Structure formats: structure tokens, C-alpha cells
């Protein structure tokens, strides 16, 4: 390893950090604007044209804000937790390619690397929860640990099903294999599982259990302020973007679909555009759904997503082993997705709708009888 290599690596990492922070700033603005529009309001409008400078103003405010440490906090854990959360979310980006050559280090075990390191962030959450000496924080930390560990399994299973298609864990190979048909077409079930579990993994609505504002008021982050809180915030948004980029790379064809010329920069742009669209979908979820309860979250993870991910895995193996035509996988996967969705609808909404209609009919009949009595 020469000095030139080291310099190059440092340069690459610097570019990566800058790029990610830019992405985070843009995402905070985008989230507030998107939510604003979904809620028929403007979002930030004051700082800069259409509030474009709001993220910068917020960053400045967070950096100069007083950093409070609770008197009874475990100081060491309290100080370390934000780094422990941030480092993994940043480290995984070392191996994420944004186009054929736009990557710090392309690894053969790239996907495995991402999965392995993203788990470490949970330790940071638990440290923050424990170190804050706050009961809400402990509740949040425990919830975070339970939730993130549970949802690692469907993510890993969905990723394994994807790996089976090109038989490689190298993200560049996986993307190149989707030149004609993106895996979203082959494995709609896999996409659904990965997206849902990914949303759960970054703790966004409807899975924002561990920092649920209305219950534990920020969970592990409740006692944090200023720069430390900003670090949590940063890693949360980086994680969101990571999940979006992974969805794009694993299922939506990355830079190679549809019909992209072999240009690194065009491909890079294409991936970023797609990733922002996926991020918008995640924000859209946030603007629409209520939050699950912790036991229901566990049920969804263990009783729905994990079995489904095994089904997805089995289907893919079957398809691979017998070398079936590609549409066979598409059709079967789609059928199972739709069936699962309909099952949930039958389980929850159907009885409620039926009861509601029955009650309304009763109320209407009651009214009519009364009116005839009066007349």
C-alpha cells in the first residue's frame, strides 16, 4: 500500500462523506416539502427560495446548540452512542456502487458486508437508550433492539433470494444481471418484503415504534440535543437513503435498466433519481400510515414477513433449479404478494367494514321507525 493509495482512499472517503451529507440535507428538505404537500401545506418557505436553505440553517442551529448531558447518564455510553450509530451507516457506503465504477471499493461479498455492518447500529441505539438514564429512552432502546434484530431476518432472506439469481454477492454483478429484466419483475414479493423490512430497519412510519413521538417521545434520542442529536439524525437519513439505493440496485435495475448507455455519470444520475423516487415513497408512507404497536410489529415481522421471505426464497430456488421461464417466477411471486395483501385486508378491514355497514343500517332503520311514530 503506497502513500498514493492511502491519499486516494482518503480522497474517496472525503467525497463520500460530503456527498452523503449533501444527500441528507436534500432529503430533510425533500421530506418536509413532500409531507407538506401531502398535508396541503407549504413546508419550509422562509429561509431561501422555497426554504431551500432551511437544511443549512437547521444544521447550523444544531451545531451551535447547547449539548446537554443528563446528570445521571452513563457519560461514556451517552457520548459514544451517536458514533456507534453513525459509523456503520457510513461504512456500508464503502461498497455501495452508484454506477459501474462509481464506488470506493467493490467487494465480492459486498451485500454481506452491508448486511453485517448495518446490524452494528443497533448496539448504538441500545447504548443511547441505556446511557440516557431515562425510562422512555430505555423503553425505546429495548424496542429498537427487538425491532431491528427481528427485521434483519426478512432483509437477509430477501437479499439471499436476490443473490441466488445471479449467484453473486457482488452488487455490480447483480445490477449488470438486470440489464433486460429488473428483479422487481421477477420477485415482486421480494421487493415488497425488502421495502417493508427496510422501512422497519430505518424505523420509519408505519414502523417508527422505537422513537414513536406520541408514546416514548423520541425513544433513545429523547435526552440528546445539539450536535449529538444531529449525528443520530444524520445516520437515520443516510440509512433511509441506503435502503432506497439498495432497493434500486437489487430490484429496480440500478444504472442498467432500462436501456442505459455505458456511461458512468448517466448511470450515476439514473440511480440517484430512482433512489429519490423510492425515498419519496417512504416519505409518502410516513404521510399516510399510522404506527403499529410493538407486539404487532413483531407479529408482522415474525409471522408474516419471515414466512413470506422463506416462500420467496423457496420459489426462487425452485425456479433456479428447474430453470423455468422467467415469467413463471413473476406470476407465482405476484400471486403470493396479492394473496398476502388480500389476506391482511380480510383479516382486519373486512370485519370492520361489515360491522360498520350493519350498524349504519340499524341506525337508519331506527330513525325511520321513529319518524313514522312521530307522524
Amino acid at each position, binding site marked *: 500500500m503506497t502513500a498514493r493509495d492511502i491519499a486516494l482512499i482518503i480522497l474517496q472517503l472525503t467525497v463520500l462523506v460530503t456527498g452523503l451529507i449533501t444527500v441528507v440535507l436534500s432529503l430533510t428538505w425533500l421530506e418536509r416539502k413532500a409531507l*407538506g404537500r*401531502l*398535508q*396541503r401545506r407549504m413546508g419550509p418557505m422562509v429561509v431561501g427560495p422555497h426554504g431551500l436553505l432551511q437544511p443549512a440553517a437547521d444544521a447550523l442551529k444544531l451545531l451551535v446548540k447547547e449539548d446537554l448531558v443528563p446528570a445521571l447518564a452513563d457519560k461514556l455510553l451517552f457520548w459514544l452512542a451517536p458514533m456507534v450509530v453513525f459509523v456503520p451507516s457510513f461504512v456500508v457506503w464503502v461498497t455501495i456502487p452508484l454506477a459501474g465504477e462509481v464506488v470506493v471499493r467493490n467487494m465480492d461479498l459486498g451485500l454481506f458486508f452491508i448486511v453485517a455492518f448495518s446490524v452494528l447500529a443497533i448496539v448504538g441505539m441500545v447504548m443511547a437508550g441505556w446511557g440516557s438514564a431515562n425510562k422512555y429512552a430505555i423503553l425505546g432502546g429495548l424496542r429498537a433492539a427487538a425491532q431491528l434484530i427481528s427485521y434483519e431476518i426478512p432483509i437477509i432472506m430477501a437479499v439471499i433470494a436476490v443473490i441466488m439469481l445471479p449467484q453473486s454477492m457482488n452488487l455490480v454483478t447483480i445490477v449488470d444481471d438486470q440489464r433486460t429484466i429488473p428483479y422487481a419483475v421477477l420477485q415482486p414479493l421480494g421487493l415488497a418484503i425488502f421495502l417493508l423490512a427496510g422501512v422497519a430497519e430505518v424505523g420509519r412510519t408505519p414502523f417508527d415504534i422505537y422513537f414513536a413521538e406520541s408514546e416514548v417521545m423520541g425513544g433513545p434520542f429523547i435526552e440528546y440535543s445539539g450536535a449529538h442529536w444531529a449525528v443520530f439524525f444524520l445516520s437515520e437519513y443516510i440509512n433511509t437513503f441506503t435502503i432506497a439505493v439498495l432497493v434500486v440496485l437489487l430490484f429496480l435495475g440500478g444504472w442498467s435498466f432500462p436501456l442505459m448507455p455505458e456511461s458512468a455519470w448517466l448511470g450515476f444520475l439514473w440511480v440517484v433519481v430512482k433512489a429519490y423516487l423510492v425515498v419519496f415513497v417512504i416519505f*409518502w*408512507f410516513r404521510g*399516510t400510515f399510522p404506527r403499529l404497536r410493538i407486539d404487532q410489529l413483531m407479529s408482522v415481522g415474525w409471522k408474516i414477513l419471515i414466512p413470506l421471505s422463506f416462500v420467496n426464497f423457496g420459489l426462487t430456488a425452485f425456479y433456479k433449479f428447474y430453470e423455468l421461464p422467467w415469467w413463471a417466477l413473476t406470476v407465482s411471486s405476484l400471486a403470493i404478494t396479492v394473496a398476502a395483501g388480500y389476506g391482511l*385486508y380480510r383479516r382486519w*378491514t373486512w370485519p370492520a367494514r361489515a360491522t360498520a355497514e350493519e350498524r349504519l343500517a340499524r341506525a337508519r332503520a331506527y330513525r325511520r321507525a321513529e319518524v313514522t311514530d312521530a307522524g
Partner: protein
Amino acid sequence: MLASFKGLGVTLRAFFKPVVTAQYPKQHLPIAPRFMGFPVLTWDDGVKEPYCTGCMVCIRACPTQCMSAQMKDNPLFKEGKSKRRKIVDDFEINLGRCILCGICVEVCNFDAIEMSHQHELSVVVRNGNRADLQQLLAMGRDYQKEMGWKPKGGEEAAKPEAVTRGETPAKEEAAV
């Protein structure tokens, strides 16, 4: 998951609808003519003096005791320019204490106090919400100009509501 998709549809439709909010400091929503902002004192342009005589009816009717007033002999009455024998000498309303109920306006017999359209409470000094006579009159002049305000009756004109209201308030108060 059907219902969830319906919900997604609702929010997405909202995404393309116009926003309903206003950018407050830059943009003010229209205020209804009846809006009850801070109580202010009106100015009689004919005589060049306030309508208020400092009779204290409003002060006694106020549920929060946010006002105080003092009465004096009206110099203009001696000169024969005004019909008001007494005139307000000093008047103070603590607007931070006022609950904008409008009772003072109802009990006033001289149309001297009105609920203006001023409603922005922020001040930079602690007692900045205490409005004295001059401030109240200035706010009142703005309100009168804005609304094209005319006295509803006053002591000389017979009030149409007088029948429903029964006795004169001065007597009422005396009976308490």
C-alpha cells in the same frame, strides 16, 4: 392491504391539490367584520375629543378587570363646544389580560369602546401590552377609518335595543 392503498390514494390526491395554508407574517387572512380584536376607544371627529366619558361601566362589567379609567370635567363643555359634561382623563387597558369577550362594548352607552381588528399581541417589553389612552385612541382611529365607523346611537339618539335592554345601565349599576 387494500384499505392502505386507498389511504395512499387520498394523500397522493392531496399532493396535487393546492395548499390551504397562508404564509402568516407575509400574508394575512381576511378578518371578518365582526372580529373582536383588542378593545379600543373611539374618537369623535366632530368635536375632536374621545366619545368616552370615563363613566366606568365597562370597567365594572369586565370579567378580568383589565381596564382602569379616570374622569375629569370636560373643558370643551365649558366652552360650549361639546355636549359631554365629563370626559375621560386617563384610560388604560392591559391587553395581555383582556380576554376579548366584547362585554365592554355591549355595556357602553356612548359607543366609546369598540372591538378593533388588532390582534397581534407580541411586544418586546414586559409591560408592552398596557395600552394607555393615546394608544387606544390611535388604534381606535385606525379601526374607525378601516370600517367607516359611525356611532350606533349614543346618548342623544334613542337606541332601538333600548326596549329590549330595559333600564339604563347607570341605574342598574347603582342597584347592585
